[in-house]
């Protein structure tokens, strides 16, 4: 079979077989409504195709859209043309420039003057496709002479051997670059002034108390000590810490407070902030040149492959596991008993907090089982105040659980397919979900319907992560792209493409500037959220990457993978050094080609040989335990968790 057969020939052969003169088609006039009908039928077809070919098929949509529009205009169906344009322009949001240019074409004679239109009409639009995708496409076109005509006249389909699919179909890299130039606000959200004042007051009290205490200790010290030259030391001021690390001057790109409405702060929020500052003052400074993190690993036993996801609460007091048997289990990491409330609590008896406490279970249990879902749990996330846990499941629902009463509080229905991932906003109140229905959604705890639906991914959205300033939501999909969405406007602001496999985990550096993504292709990519560019690739893992997290200063990235390792990466190394970057890219290419040509080679060779990039600092092996979750605590201790996999591969 001639692999490079062009569309023309095939289409001509087909037309001859059908007894239609190829030339005869052009003359036939179409009802203007048909454009819409046929274009949407193609759209539906592409949407419904297999993920594997979707990307390739997607590419034909844009040229067909343009030509359909131009034909409508040229035939003076102006209202229909505008309607057509408005209905479908959202499909091509990355072609903003062209869309603007097309939009102004309102008369047939405009077409002759418009450079873009002439470009489209004079040249056949090149589309690359693999053999199978081409077969499928032609099969679809068989009885659609309308679309067949456009394809025949204006498209040049190049059928070739399979090539590695990188990037978003229909987007040239240049277009993507321009798209990613849109302005974003990555700064930290300023604190509520009233809240800030209150925190400062609290910290001041705390500082004074501490000073008094140290002084008292010093006074109590013997004269010997004084003689030995032990000098009175001023304890490190928490207020100072606060000034340095939290209360930043409003940076130019900080979002406005009003853009993300949050409930007004409570006394407990102040308390939490004070605790946070205290933790920060005790933080170990980590860095590739100073200290590497300590990693505490939680191994789960007897899971029999039923543990799907793990989450650790912000204050690292609780660990939650989501199981394929539809339940969630909560354990205390502090070794305390978990105390829910007694089965029957007579509300009339409760007059004070102490009454309520007396109604707690005694002595409590080591673990709490949360029942409510009716399908495997795929995602868990604790609220930043540790009071709630949100879970998502195959049963299409998302549930909010109280970690005080250990009961289900709200059930959110909205997704119409399994929900893969969920993430709480860093300021609480909001959470985002990602699902099999190709959308990500934004919810607030007090509404049972989604506030925003982020649609645009070509396939399942597999992971979701809030930006630290809560203004953006970042999603990763099996369509190999990462997108960043504005929470307020619901529109896409960044598209990152470069991965050669689905994306399963994301992490944003605490300063909000760097995004790390990892997944099926075993590489971690670092992206600059500001200018939308790839910073570097980090290679070393030999299996799917499940979890990523930055250390609290953002200098170290930790990754957990199915290859039973935790790896620590130097974030800064190689970003400024261009030669290094090129080096790593070329090795990656060699590797990916290898795996393409020999899909089973990895099963035969006992030790996959991956040459890690130089920014890999340490590889920490676990005992047959894939690493499900990596989390840096506020004091910069790295927590990792996974389920022990006893079964040996036969």
């Amino acid at each position, binding site marked *: 079979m001639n692999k490079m057969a062009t569309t023309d020939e095939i289409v001509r052969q087909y037309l001859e077989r059908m007894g239609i003169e190829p030339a005869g088609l052009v003359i036939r006039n179409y009802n203007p409504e048909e454009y819409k009908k046929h274009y949407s039928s193609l759209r539906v077809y592409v949407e419904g195709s*297999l*993920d*594997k070919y979707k990307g390739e098929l997607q590419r034909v949509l844009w040229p067909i859209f343009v030509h359909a529009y131009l034909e409508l205009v040229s035939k003076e169906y102006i209202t229909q043309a505008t309607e057509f344009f408005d209905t479908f322009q959202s499909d091509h949001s990355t072609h903003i420039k062209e869309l603007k240019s097309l939009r102004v074409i309102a008369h047939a004679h405009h077409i002759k003057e418009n450079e873009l239109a002439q470009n489209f009409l004079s040249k056949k639009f090149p589309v690359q496709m693999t053999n*199978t995708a081409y077969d499928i496409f032609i099969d679809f076109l068989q009885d659609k002479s309308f679309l067949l005509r456009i394809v025949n006249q204006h498209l040049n389909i190049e059928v070739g051997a399979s090539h590695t699919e990188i990037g978003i179909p229909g987007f040239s890299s240049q277009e993507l670059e321009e798209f990613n130039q849109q302005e974003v606000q990555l700064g930290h959200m300023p604190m509520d002034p009233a809240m800030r004042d209150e925190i400062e007051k609290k910290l001041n009290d705390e500082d004074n108390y501490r000073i008094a205490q140290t002084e008292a200790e010093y006074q109590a010290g013997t004269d010997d000590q004084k003689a030995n030259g032990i000098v009175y030391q001023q304890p490190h001021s928490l207020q100072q810490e606060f000034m340095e690390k939290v209360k930043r001057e409003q940076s130019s790109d900080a979002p406005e407070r009003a853009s993300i409405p949050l409930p007004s702060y409570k006394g407990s929020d102040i308390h939490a902030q004070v605790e946070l500052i205290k933790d920060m003052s005790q933080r170990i400074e980590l860095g590739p040149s100073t*200290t*590497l*993190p*300590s*990693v*505490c*690993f*939680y*191994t*789960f*036993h*007897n*899971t*029999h*492959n039923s*543990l*799907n*996801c793990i989450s650790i609460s912000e204050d690292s007091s609780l*660990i939650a596991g989501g*199981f*394929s048997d539809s339940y969630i*289990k909560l*354990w205390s*990491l502090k070794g305390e008993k978990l105390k829910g409330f007694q089965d029957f609590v007579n509300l009339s008896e409760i007059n004070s907090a102490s009454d309520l406490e007396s109604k707690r279970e005694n002595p409590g249990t080591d673990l709490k089982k949360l029942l409510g879902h009716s*399908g*495997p749990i*795929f995602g868990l996330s604790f609220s930043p105040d540790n009071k709630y846990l949100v879970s998502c499941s*195959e049963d299409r629902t998302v549930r909010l659980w109280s970690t005080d009463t250990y009961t289900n509080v709200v059930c959110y229905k909205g997704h119409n*397919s*399994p929900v*893969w991932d969920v993430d709480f906003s860093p300021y609480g109140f909001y959470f985002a979900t990602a699902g*099999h229905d190709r959308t990500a959604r934004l919810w607030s705890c007090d509404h049972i319907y989604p506030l925003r639906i982020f649609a645009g991914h070509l396939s*399942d959205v*597999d992971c979701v992560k809030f930006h630290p300033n809560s203004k953006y939501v970042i999603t990763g999909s*099996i369509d190999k792209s990462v997108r960043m969405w504005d929470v307020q406007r619901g529109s896409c602001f960044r598209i990152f493409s470069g991965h050669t496999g*689905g994306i*399963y985990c994301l992490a944003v550096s605490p300063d909000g500037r760097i995004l790390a993504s990892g997944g*099926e292709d075993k590489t971690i990519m670092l992206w600059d959220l500001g200018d939308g560019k790839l910073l570097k690739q980090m290679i070393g893992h030999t*299996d*799917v990457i*499940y979890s990523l997290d930055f250390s609290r200063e953002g200098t170290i990235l930790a990754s957990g993978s*199915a290859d039973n390792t*935790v790896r*620590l990466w130097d974030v800064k190394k190689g970003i400024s050094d261009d030669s290094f970057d090129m080096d790593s890219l070329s090795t990656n290419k060699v590797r990916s080609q290898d795996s393409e040509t020999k899909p089973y080679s990895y099963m035969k060779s006992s030790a996959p040989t991956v040459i890690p990039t130089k920014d890999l*600092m*340490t590889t*920490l*092996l*676990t*005992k047959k335990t*894939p690493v*499900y979750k990596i989390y840096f605590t506020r004091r910069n201790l*790295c927590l*990792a968790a996974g*389920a022990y996999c006893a079964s040996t591969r*036969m």
Partner: protein
Amino acid sequence: MDKIFPKDTIKNTADSIGITNLKDNAAAALALDAEYRIHEIIQEANKFMRHSKRTKLTGEDINNALRVINVDPLYGFTLNDNFKFQRTLAGQQELLFMDDDEYEFETLITSPMPKLPAEVTYTAHWLAVEGVQPAIPHNPPPPIEDTIPESSRKKAPPNAIVQVPNGVVTGTSDIELKPLVQHVISQELKVFYDKVTKTIKGGDSKMKVSVLYSLQHDTGLAQLLPYFVRFICEQIGQNIKKNTIVESILEMTNALINNTSLRLEPYLHHLVPAILTCVVRKKFGPDPDYHWKIRDSAALVLAKICDRFGMEYNTLQPRVIKTLLSALTDPTKSLSTHYGCIVALGALGREVVKTILVPNLKTYSEILEQRKNVDKNKAERCENAILEILPKLKGSSVPTDSDQNSQISDEDLQQRLADKIGVHLAKQVMDKISDNEVIMATLNC
């Protein structure tokens, strides 16, 4: 792309549901569609597998995928058992099928409930402390290559002396073949090693118990193993005359053998001679009676080594037996050596007693008889050892002539026994072993 489903498959399927006249092009179209659907199901199932953080597709994933694309799930395939396909030939074609056992409801219902699976639990440990992985049982032993810094390997000077772990220092000319094995051992392991050796050499008993427990159960000791083996060999060599710590050393060896995470195989050629020494050495220790005990425990350790590594090194046990037997049948060797041999052969199990020890007892009986006049005490020890071992034979063979046995008089029996194991021993056996079965078993050897 190759088509997975030939149209014949579709035709066969159609046949099986009663459509016999399916046209070729219809079958081809259906085959194409079936392939597409299968692809779709696999694609969806794969997503479920990934999100369940597994690397193996299960029946449950397929069912979830079917549910997502609005198809009824298939029941009966969701067990987590590893399904194995069997091959068979039907006519010319090779077919694959799964074993499908039939169960009786009655037996299923009446059979006791299976045990509840263990509750999910978690354990915490340090995977790394400031970026360095501590050598604790929770962490896997680091790969050996990693413990040798690359720089030291490259720096190996051309005429270096190779320091191999067992302490043998060799200056070799074929230096380029061997890397400079500079074992880098972490501070923790060094401290641990010092602690262990100090305790074994003479620590308090409480400490010793915990050290032995650690040696037997810790999994992170692989790096220290060569040092331990060297320690054992050296200590046995130096202290055999004093015999005070030999017993502790044997206990330590025993603990290391019992540790399933250690690979002792490469060190057996050092260990076995040392242990054999403890069994058969002519004289050790100032205490005239203490050494019997040591021989006993050394024999047990020896038997354990043979038991654990005998499968892998099938020459191991024969070689040990040969050494023991040649010592036993040598009349010039001391009686204490003989005692060690007897005990060790006894410890190696019934089969060895039956095929090796008993057939040689007749020769030994004479040796023993002569020696008894000279050193009665030791000879009696040997006798007693044999008498203790013989009951092991009990029940080994079904006496073929059991009917006759009962009628045989004691004198007759003693005569037969004397033919078998010598006059002297036969007398002892008749005197001290009242169990007829043991005697018969001995006779039947």
